[in-house]
């Protein structure tokens, strides 16, 4: 028995070496040169669902445009996907895993915490990273190697605060964040700032990791007599909150950030009486050919690929993060073309000038490496059809 085990483990290690070595070679199956793009996304943990949807966008884009012309030669684009497990302590090893695989640049991540945690690793290795939906200012602040194509929390928080005030005439808001989650904590902070500036009052509470009982929180919101329930938390928590809100017959509207723009939320809210509005990057049903082609193409892609369908949450609702991932991929290709090199340093040099018209709007970077975006779309759930309804385009007054 012992011997068998020893033999097996040795086999395992040998194969490890073999495969690890196998990935190192510079030319792909087609024999073309290979440029590696790292996909730094959570596939498990609290942000697993969102991360997978974002990854889908990138994979879909890669399936459409699998090659890029860099400095006159065609390169096959190879995606190196690692799971940062939505946890800041795993993030570092995941990041260095990517770096050690020799990626030219990195896309991701969904969730700001992991991006911040991984940021230094990328910077040290001189691998530029393009944040897709990590909206916390800290991601790019003071990190010359991190760029992003999404708007920032201060903006989003303010937009939501305005929306709460204008649309619902809210005077008292209940803000719920997850402990130690930079995304929700950050977004709550900026919301509170903005909302109080508008003369509102905010009850701010946090729930520890691994909470599945939100009864008390919903009850708190009711008892404190709040007018809106603001909880820009992970999708996992979102579904549970909606469940509880429905059970306790929560009448106040629920507001959330871009994370909630997900079919998981739609699924949870369908057939309930919960009123949910979110700010997001992208809305379906535009007539712009670029968008329609993306939408139709992606739905075909899902239909053709079972695992993709499951990763998308079992239906073909398109999440904004998917669109963002899609755009991020093309932005990366633009950068590669412009740089005319696969060396991270060169790419980083040209990134500031890179611009791209994506399905989620025009993409350009400011001196900070942040996207120049001044509009967010507001959508609300249609509880009967379980689809998104476009409400308005909001921007900060």
């Amino acid at each position, binding site marked *: 028995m012992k011997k068998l085990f020893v033999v097996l483990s040795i086999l395992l290690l040998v194969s490890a070496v073999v495969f690890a070595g196998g990935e190192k070679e510079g030319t792909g199956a087609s024999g073309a040169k290979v440029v590696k793009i790292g996909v730094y996304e959570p596939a*498990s943990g609290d942000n697993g669902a969102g991360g997978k949807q974002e990854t889908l966008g990138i994979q879909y884009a890669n399936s459409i445009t699998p090659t890029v012309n860099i400095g006159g030669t065609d390169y096959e684009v190879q995606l190196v996907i690692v799971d940062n497990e939505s946890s800041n302590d795993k993030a570092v090893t995941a990041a260095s895993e990517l770096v050690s695989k020799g990626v030219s640049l990195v896309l991701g991540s969904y969730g700001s915490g992991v991006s911040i945690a991984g940021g230094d690793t990328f910077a040290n290795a001189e691998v530029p990273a393009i944040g897709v939906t990590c909206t916390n200012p800290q991601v790019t602040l003071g990190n010359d190697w991190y760029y992003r194509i999404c708007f920032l929390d201060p903006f989003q928080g303010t937009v939501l605060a305005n929306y709460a005030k204008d649309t619902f005439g809210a005077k008292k808001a209940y803000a719920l964040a997850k*402990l130690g989650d930079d995304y929700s904590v950050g977004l709550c902070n900026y919301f509170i700032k903005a909302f109080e500036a508008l003369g509102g009052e905010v009850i701010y509470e946090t729930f*520890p990791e*691994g909470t599945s009982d939100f*009864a*008390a929180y919903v*009850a708190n919101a009711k*008892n404190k007599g709040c007018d809106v329930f603001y909880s820009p938390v992970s999708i996992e928590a979102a579904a549970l909150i909606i469940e509880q809100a429905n059970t*306790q*017959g929560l009448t106040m509207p629920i507001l959330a950030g871009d994370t909630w723009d997900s079919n998981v939320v739609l699924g949870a809210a369908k057939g309930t009486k919960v009123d949910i509005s979110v700010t997001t990057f992208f809305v379906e049903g535009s007539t712009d050919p670029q968008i329609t082609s993306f939408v139709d193409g992606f739905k075909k892609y899902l239909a053709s690929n079972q695992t993709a369908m499951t990763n998308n949450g079992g239906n073909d609702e398109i999440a904004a993060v998917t669109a963002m991932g899609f755009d991020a991929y093309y932005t990366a290709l633009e950068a590669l073309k412009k740089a005319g090199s696969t060396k991270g340093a060169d790419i980083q040099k040209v990134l500031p000038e890179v611009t791209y018209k994506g399905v989620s709007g025009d993409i350009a970077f400011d001196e900070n490496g942040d996207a120049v975006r001044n509009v967010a779309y507001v959508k609300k759930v249609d509880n009967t059809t379980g689809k998104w309804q476009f409400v308005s385009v909001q921007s900060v007054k």
Partner: protein
Amino acid sequence: MGFFQSNLPYLLAGISTGGQYALIAIGYTMVYGILRLINFAHGDVFMCAALMVIYSASYMPLYVSLPLAVIATGVIGFAIERVAYKPLRTAPRMSAMISAIGMSYLLQNLALYVTGGLTKYYPSVPFIADSIEIFGAMTKRVTVITPFVTIILIVALVSIIKYTKIGIAMRAVSRDFETAQLMGVRINSVISATFVIGSLLAAIGSILFFSNYTGVTPTVGGMPGLKAFVAAVFGGIGSIPGAVIGAFIIGICENIIKGLGWTTFSDAFTFVLLIIVLMFMPTGLFGEKATDKV
């Protein structure tokens, strides 16, 4: 009345979570009573039960899949004992416990692999998952049912332990392992029975728990498991009534704390409570005093 109405949700949530913790805690406390082993994998058995319901429910009607899942959980409990603990009977206690931790890892990671890291949502069980109104407080029927189910099961369990042959054997083994063995008690079957019973209760607990809080992730068993274990220690590990009382106390306090807005500490408070109790009763509320014969 307004005060009562506004605070009723916390109390209800507390009682129901308490009941669910109790059902898990029994598994811990029984196993500990017999093997002096902290079965860290128990919380994950609880999670597996939920996953099995979710997956089976997509193939068969709930009234089939629920009992099936419960039975399957019992089998899992049995298997875990045979695979992970039986070979370590003679080994130092620590390694048995490590085996438990390893098992918990294995179950979590298997779940992670199967679910692909995505949260699965529990099918809403008709009747018990319906929302109802008590004294103006909206809640799910399960919240009200749980404590009764718990009590009934406890009574049943206690009477099993008191009157049936296997129950007597269990008590004998937990009193003195070696002697019981010498007296011809079939240790292995007793231990297996303990694990099966514990798992069955955990399975029922999971039905109640997840009908209320529907999200199932691979690590979802962790916190309830830990809390239940704390409850078991709180009540004096090894004692079933102790575990149940401990569970209810913890469940209720936890929700009151949340109600008071100390949400950051809702988990930590459980441990504060535990440590305070251990300060004054080093073996919990009903634990038998450990005497060291010189």
